[in-house]
Each structure stands twice: as structure tokens, then as C-alpha cells.
């Protein structure tokens, strides 16, 4: 397939190209560990975009309305609020450090002027309120402008305080802290469609919380064997169904997905559906278990499908068919012959995430060398794009990249051996309504959007 045509008609048949919009983060060559982005998430409207990093910070970007004198620009995302969500801690009982790294951020559906999000590190989930203040009450009766109480004898007349405009201030305040419920490392949080509860998953257990209640949670899945030496499987990701508040799924390190119905029993140790694809015995290797481990699971917006990412591929499952995925897309199949080196340099343990576009017609996931991949579900076409500073001129169109797989390397192709495995795109997010994507490349956040012809 001709590359140019492929990316021209990509994403649901719309005639557009992806172009550079913005890049956030320092240009410096040496990257501080704390600045590495560890999660990216749009809110429900797409107006806000949150990132979390290894330093425990959350940065929220807000979409600015397009300006009238530059109608071709759709408006940019600018920093709205930055706050320290988690601090490094020490577990004195286990004599273990607890990292501040933000593992996941999930927005709550907006219900009033304020925005709420959940952020989690390995152990503790926090509910944050992000609210604006652009007015200040002035002229109090009993206290002066500095807040000091006035002498009652000097109050001779009644004053009514008035709201005076002031510079916009965005406040982030922790509203709830959900701690001490996870023995292992939290890998997922997911807000339920009832807007009242959410689940959190670690390696062996899934807990169900009420957003208002911090001192108790319900353990709904527990796969810990009585004897840990019999352990063969861990939970790698979990998510609530987007519409049915009784349904959730969790993926495992064995490459399987279990769908549970909370109506069936309070304890969901027994699943309702079990999604598994039989393994191809011809492709078995030392690393079969590692590469089949699922690193992410995401329901489609419609709730009809779910997508799973393993090391080499991304699969779309129909919730009505358990025995095999309806679609399988190879992300970087050329790495299959490099698994041994990828094991030695630890890359094989990388946890790539995946996301749907707003209409569920296309999916996106990351790869190495700052490449990311998109797959059009209707046309089954795919495209490799690169997040790089070189092509980061405003409105620059992204050229499709190609990795040469065996044989002669054509012009404009990159050989597998020259891929930079330190540059990896693990976290991406797709705007819920528009063709705007956010791509985390180490400490930089790239925002790309479509260029309507």
C-alpha cells in the first residue's frame, strides 16, 4: 500500500493528515527521571488534558478557544494547573520505599463548575478537586482587608461584603485520600458509570470504592493463592464498562481477559466471560509468557468492544465472542526476532497502553524510536508516525515512517537495528470528540491534530 494514500484517507475515511500542534516539556538532552511522563488522560469533554509524571506531579492543560484572527488554528492547550499529587513515602513495616510516580489519572464526569480527578501511585489513590477562583469578597464588616478582626467599638455602620474581580486562580485541593487498601502495586483505576464508585486494581486484587468513603472498600476480586509459590498469573489492568455499572473486565499476565458481573455475586472471583485466544505453538519461545502478557485493556466508547495490548500486538475483542479477537493488529512484529536483546535490556517489560478515537473507528498505541501506530478499523489500514522535535514546526504535516523488515532497506525506511529503544511511547490519549491526540515521549508531551483539507 502506498504510504501517502494510506495516511491521507486514514481514520474513518475522513480526508485529513495529522499535523504538529504543540510540544510541552524541556528540550534538554539529559532528562531528569522525575520529569518522565507516566500517564496522559483527556477529560470527558476534551477541554482538559492531564499528565502525571514520575516525580508525582500532575500537570493539567486547558484547551484555549480558537482566536478569530487565526481561524486555521484550533486553539492550543496551555497549562491550567500544576500540583504535587504524591510524595515519596516510606513503609516502615515493610522497610520499603513507596515511589511518588503517578501510575494512572482518571477524570470524573463533570457535574459542576469544578473538575475532579483521581490520581494514584503504587499504593494510594487521591481524589483532587480543581476549581477556579476569579472573584474575591471584600469589605467585611467585622474584619479589615488584612483579615484582622476590627475593634467592635469602631464599627459604626453596617457594610455588606462585595465580590470583586481578581486574577484567575486555579486551585487543586485533595478532597479524599484512599489509602491502605493495596498490598501490591496499583496498576489501574477506573471510574464507574454510576459516577459514584470506582475500582482500583493491583497485581492480585481489585477493590471497589465509593468516591465519598475513604475508610472502607470492597474487595471484589482476589486471585492470590494461599501459597504464593503456586502463583502463575497476576492482574495487569482493569476497567469498568462505560455504560453498565455492574460490568468490569480485568486482564492478566497470561494474556486472558475476564469479564465479571457484580450482580452475580458480591465477590467476583468467578468470571462471567473469559476471553482467550489459543496460543500458536509454532511461535513459542523463551519469552512467550512475557509477550502475551496484557499491558492495557480499554472498552470502546460504545461498550461493544474492548481492546487489549500485548507486547507485539493490539487486539480488538467483541464482548459477545470469547474464543478469539475480532481484529488483531501487529504493532511492531519486526521485534519478534529481537526478543532476546529486548529481554536483556529490559524493554520486553515495557507496558504499552492503547486508546480508541472518539468514534471507535480507529485505535492508537505506542512503539519504540518515538514511533506510534494508528489502525483504521474500517479499512484495516495502519500508519506509523513519529513524535520528534525535527518535525515540530507549526502545522507541519507528519510524514509516515516505515521500518524495513528484512531484505533491502528502501529509501526513507529505518532499519530495525537503528531504532532507539530508549525513546518509547507508552502513553497516548485521543480527544473524546475531535481528532486531537496527545502523545507522551519520555519528558515531552506532543499534541497533534488533523489538518482539514
Amino acid at each position, binding site marked *: 500500500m502506498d504510504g501517502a494514500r494510506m495516511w491521507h484517507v486514514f481514520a474513518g475515511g475522513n480526508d485529513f493528515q495529522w499535523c504538529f500542534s504543540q510540544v510541552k516539556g524541556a528540550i534538554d538532552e539529559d532528562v531528569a527521571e522525575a520529569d518522565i511522563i507516566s500517564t496522559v488522560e483527556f477529560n470527558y469533554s476534551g477541554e482538559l488534558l492531564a499528565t502525571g509524571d514520575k516525580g508525582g506531579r500532575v500537570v493539567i492543560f486547558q484547551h484555549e478557544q480558537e482566536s478569530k484572527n487565526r481561524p486555521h488554528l484550533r486553539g492550543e492547550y496551555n497549562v491550567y494547573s500544576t500540583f504535587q499529587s504524591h510524595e515519596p513515602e516510606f513503609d516502615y513495616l515493610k522497610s520499603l520505599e513507596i515511589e511518588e510516580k503517578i501510575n494512572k489519572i482518571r477524570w470524573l464526569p463533570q457535574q459542576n463548575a469544578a473538575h475532579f480527578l483521581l490520581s494514584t501511585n503504587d499504593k494510594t489513590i487521591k481524589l483532587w478537586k480543581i476549581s477556579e477562583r476569579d472573584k474575591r469578597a471584600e469589605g467585611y464588616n467585622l474584619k479589615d482587608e488584612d483579615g484582622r478582626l476590627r475593634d467592635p467599638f469602631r464599627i459604626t455602620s453596617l457594610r455588606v461584603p462585595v465580590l470583586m474581580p481578581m486574577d484567575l486562580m486555579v486551585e487543586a485541593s485533595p478532597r479524599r485520600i484512599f489509602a491502605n487498601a493495596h498490598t501490591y502495586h496499583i496498576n489501574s483505576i477506573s471510574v464507574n458509570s454510576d459516577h459514584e464508585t470506582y475500582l482500583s486494581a493491583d497485581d492480585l486484587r481489585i477493590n471497589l470504592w465509593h468516591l465519598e468513603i475513604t475508610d472502607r472498600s470492597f474487595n471484589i476480586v482476589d486471585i492470590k493463592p494461599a501459597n504464593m*509459590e*503456586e502463583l502463575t498469573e497476576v492482574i495487569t489492568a482493569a476497567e469498568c464498562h462505560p455504560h453498565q455499572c455492574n460490568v468490569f473486565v480485568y486482564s492478566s499476565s497470561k494474556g486472558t481477559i475476564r469479564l465479571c458481573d457484580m450482580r452475580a455475586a458480591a465477590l467476583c472471583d468467578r468470571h462471567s466471560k473469559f476471553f482467550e485466544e489459543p496460543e500458536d505453538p509454532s511461535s513459542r519461545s523463551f519469552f512467550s509468557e512475557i509477550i502475551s502478557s496484557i499491558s492495557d485493556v480499554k472498552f470502546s466508547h460504545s461498550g461493544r468492544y474492548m481492546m487489549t495490548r500485548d507486547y507485539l500486538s493490539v487486539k480488538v475483542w467483541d464482548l459477545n465472542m470469547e474464543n478469539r479477537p475480532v481484529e488483531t493488529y501487529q504493532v511492531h512484529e519486526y521485534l519478534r526476532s529481537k526478543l532476546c536483546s529486548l529481554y536483556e535490556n529490559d524493554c520486553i517489560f515495557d507496558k504499552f497502553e492503547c486508546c480508541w478515537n472518539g468514534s471507535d473507528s480507529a485505535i492508537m498505541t505506542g512503539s519504540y524510536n518515538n514511533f506510534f501506530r494508528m489502525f483504521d478499523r474500517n479499512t484495516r489500514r495502519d500508519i506509523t508516525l513519529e513524535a520528534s522535535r525535527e518535525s515540530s514546526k507549526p502545522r507541519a504535516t507528519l510524514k509516515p515512517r516505515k521500518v524495513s523488515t528484512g531484505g533491502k532497506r528502501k529509501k526513507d525506511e529505518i532499519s530495525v537495528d537503528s531504532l532507539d529503544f530508549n525513546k518509547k511511547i507508552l502513553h497516548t490519549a485521543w480527544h473524546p470528540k475531535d481528532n486531537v491526540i496527545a502523545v507522551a515521549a519520555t519528558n515531552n508531551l506532543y499534541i497533534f491534530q488533523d489538518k482539514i483539507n
Partner: protein
Amino acid sequence: MEVNAEARRILAVSISKLYASRTQRGGLRLHRSLLLSMVMRSARDIYHSSRECEGPAGAQPASEEPMDTTPNPEEQPGLPEPEPQPALNSTEPAQEESDSSEEDSDTEITEDKENLSPARQSRKRRGKASAAPDFLPSKRARLEPGEERYAAPLGSWRLPGRVEPPPLSLPPSLPPQQRSAEQRAEKKPDAGRKV
């Protein structure tokens, strides 16, 4: 042979990774450790099965083999890991290669699994020399002056009054085939002579 070397290398890499993950900030990652142990297991299986394949041709003393007419489970193909003959090592029941089955199964389901004290046997290796690949440092008893490390020459088996050594004293680095052959030879001291 190549598969064998590859398996050895992967085993060595896995061990160093497991060691390194102990010092991992934020504590040992269960998912990673589990995947590492699975790679180690498949590498170990392949390592042993490839050794098994080349075993009869190489390591085994040729003079003893034709005499052995008793069926020996160890030489049957398809066994991933040879076990010591039950007759020689009756303390260890036939089992899976996984160490987990060595333990008393704890059927009691308790709410607080974190604070369970698993009633278990000693975790020390018991004569499972065949499970230890030869690149692992082998723990051996200190030699007394004059004592010989490896099996004595064939002739010494015929010495009158010699006490048969327990299977545990066999050098752990010997491949399983050779080891069992020696054990058999010790039981039937005439085997070597009749050739």
C-alpha cells in the same frame, strides 16, 4: 548445543535480573518477578531437555549402558526433568519440577492472607542435584585431606566392607544420566566387570 548455550545465557541473565529487582525502588514488582521466573523455567526446561538429548552420546560411560536392562524412567523421552530414582531417594516423592509442590498444601482459606504463616518444610534443596544447572555455584562439603572429590575408580567398588554412600553425597554437577548410572553401578557392583 546452540539451544543449550542460549538457555544457559538466558538463565544467567534472568538470575541477575531477579537479584537486581531486590534493590528496586518501591519494592519488588510481582508482575516482573513472575514473568522472570517463567522465562527461567522455560529456559531451564529447554536446558535440561537439550542436555538429555546429548546425554547418552557424551557423558555416559559406554561400558555400563548395555548391561542395564531394568526400565529406567529417566531415559524416557519427553520428561522435561529427570528425577532421582525413587528407590534411591525415597524421601522425595515424584513431583512436578516446581518447588511449590514440595510444600504441604494449605487448604485452609483465611481472610488475612498476608499474615498467614505457611506451615512448610525446609526450603533447602534435598538432593535435587539434577535441578541445579552447572553454572550455579554448587555447595559442596569441604574435602578432608586426601579425600577424593569424584567417584572413586571402578575397582574401589569391589573393596570389601565399603559402605554404600547415600545418594546425597554424589557430586551435584554430574549430569543426571551419569549420576544415575553410577548409582546403579553402585547397587550392582558387577555391572562394570562383566563387560
